[in-house]
């Protein structure tokens, strides 16, 4: 009632006395939202737009670090870079894609359990998911060297159950060793990005109203049908969020393949890294960065459209 009174009062009181004074005020736009946007926009301009333009211009220049670069609109750099490094692009996308699928398969049941079944253990489990972040990314990746080392227990077990034979058949190992192989790189990627999959999945499964699952069962859906028709579609926002958070950084990753891989597992992030910092061919490095960005943007755009999450979010 109080609200109604407050709303009703102004039209009766001000018109005669203060409306001429108020009129120019009303005409002015309200700038507060734009002012609030300003810090964020400034940040984006300084740390995203400017570096992006600088990168774009760098990729079209010719020269060397010693003699300096000059703008020559040399588009041939892109052609050269792509023809030399396309296998690395392809490999990055395959590795990142495989790791993304594996994290999804591992994370979904875990997130479901945490969100729907864990009760009072929920918070402890959440802390455990985040706990690895307290250790350096590098240390955690190096730990996989020990885990997969030839005389370690993991490899012994894998040999005993002939997992190594299967992996060899799939050409994931290198010379009968799990370490320094495609398998090791995918393991590292999967492990490192797992929390980024779990957390968005958890968030969307936690919001899932349990009575919807009961309603599906009540309407003759078997547990499998309930998952396919209700749980999965309602968790899609989390699936899309998680796969993006995993796939995008994984495809540009340059640590896992350097520490756990071999010369046959070099990913595009590693190439860009060495082009910039070791070979110091800035033009090629900039061109590769740009192409990687373009590929990821196109893939993500297609993926998000296909997933059709607009209605669900």
């Amino acid at each position, binding site marked *: 009632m109080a609200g109604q009174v407050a709303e009703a009062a102004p039209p009766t009181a001000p018109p005669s006395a203060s409306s001429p004074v108020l009129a120019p005020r009303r005409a002015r736009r309200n700038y507060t939202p734009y002012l609030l946007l300003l810090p964020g926009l400034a940040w984006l301009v300084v740390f995203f737009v400017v570096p992006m333009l600088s990168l774009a211009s760098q990729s079209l220049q010719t020269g060397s670090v010693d003699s300096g670069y000059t703008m020559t609109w040399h588009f041939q750099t892109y052609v050269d870079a792509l023809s030399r490094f396309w296998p690395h692009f392809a490999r990055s996308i395959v590795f990142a894609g495989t790791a993304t699928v594996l994290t999804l398969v591992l994370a979904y049941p875990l997130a479901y359990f945490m969100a729907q079944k864990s009760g009072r253990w929920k918070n402890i489990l959440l802390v455990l998911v985040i706990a690895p972040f307290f250790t350096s990314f590098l240390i955690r990746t190096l730990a996989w060297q020990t885990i997969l080392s030839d005389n370690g227990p993991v490899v012994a077990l894998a040999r005993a159950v002939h997992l190594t034979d299967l992996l060899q058949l799939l050409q994931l190992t290198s010379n009968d060793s799990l370490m320094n192989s495609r398998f090791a790189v995918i393991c590292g990627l999967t492990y490192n990005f797992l929390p980024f999959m779990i957390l968005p999945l958890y968030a969307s499964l936690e919001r899932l*109203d349990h*009575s*919807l699952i*009961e*309603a*599906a*069962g*009540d*309407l*003759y*859906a*078997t*547990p499998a*049908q309930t998952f396919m*028709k*209700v749980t999965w*579609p*309602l968790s899609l926002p989390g699936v899309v969020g998680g796969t993006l958070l995993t796939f995008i950084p994984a495809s540009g990753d340059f640590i896992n393949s350097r520490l756990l891989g071999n010369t046959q597992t070099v990913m595009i992030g590693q190439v860009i890294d060495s082009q910039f910092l070791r070979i110091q061919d800035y033009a090629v490095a900039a061109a590769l960065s740009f192409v990687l960005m373009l590929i990821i943007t196109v893939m993500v755009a297609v993926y998000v459209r296909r997933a059709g999450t607009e*209605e*669900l979010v």
Partner: protein
Amino acid sequence: MTDKTSGDLKLTGITKTFETFTAVDNLDLVIPRGSFFALLGPSGCGKTTTLRMVAGLDQPTIGQIWIGNQDITDTRAYQRNVNTVFQSYALFPHLSIVDNVAFGLRRRKVSDYKTKAMEALELVQLAHIAKKKPGQLSGGMQQRVALARAIVNRPDVLLLDEPLGALDLKLRRQMQIELKQIQSEVGLTFVHVTHDQEEAMTMADTIAVMNAGRLEQVADPATLYERPTSTFVANFLGQSNLLKATVKGRTSTTAELDVHGVNLRLPVDRLKATTTELWLGVRPEKVRLAGPVNGGAADRDMADADNQLTGVVVDASFTGLATNYLIRLPWGQELMVVQQNDGTRSAARGAQVTLGWAPQHGFALSADQDAHAGAQDQADDSGAI
């Protein structure tokens, strides 16, 4: 659908315990096929737990559930020909209204699910919004969609878990009438869980009153109101005046009672043969007032009001339709009296009055019960509406 599965719903010896708490305690209940049955009770009395066990969402700790002559106790929810209208409606937010309604039909591979779903939507007068999503509908519309989604499957038993709880009063009234009409139209067994006694009385053929996991009384609304068998029922459904009474003598038709030194009567069939102490109950609207202000008309009304007491008016509140009096009796107890506003009687505060009621309007309750059982629950629940 087949004769094998359809029939009465029977619960035999159902007990449900959660760790140390007993939600439902040795419940036996038969719900006849095609009836509109209400499970009524205050929050936490076990009515929703009972409903969930029938739906297959909870398993009874002990006991069996039967539909007709088939024991469905150990079947899963999706295997039972039972559907639920959930309190929160539980409509699937990612599906259109018609897809929500067709959900059960499609799981059962019914071929013309689209036609049947549209028919069900027409029954609840929502065919025009079939393409919308649940989020775009009002609460009342969602409620009807939930009903259509359950009814379309023609279940042996339709369970309604406080289906009108989230609606405002006006819409509740309207939906009560609509639900009843739909039930008689489709002829399914409806089991309606509610804490609202008025809703249960308005809609159900038979009401089971539950309290603390046990059945208090199962009867049609009129019997439940006129002949409650426990103080809980007497207080939970409407209001009751309960007077401490002792049996002084019996004839073939009438029992003579002593109430604080006053002789009152009750038809003898309301009493067990062995009863000596009892609570004598009478509803406030059955008691009539006579006093100094009243002329011949009121005295004529008192003609068959053989049970007479005297008292002083301590409060009179005029509600338009009636006046509610609070009368203090000589031994200090206060009696509620409701007088219809038919223009004949009125009594002012402080007036000395005579009250009376016909013996057949009284009911007897066993004296070992708490006279206030159920009164608080009812006050709480009506406050919440």
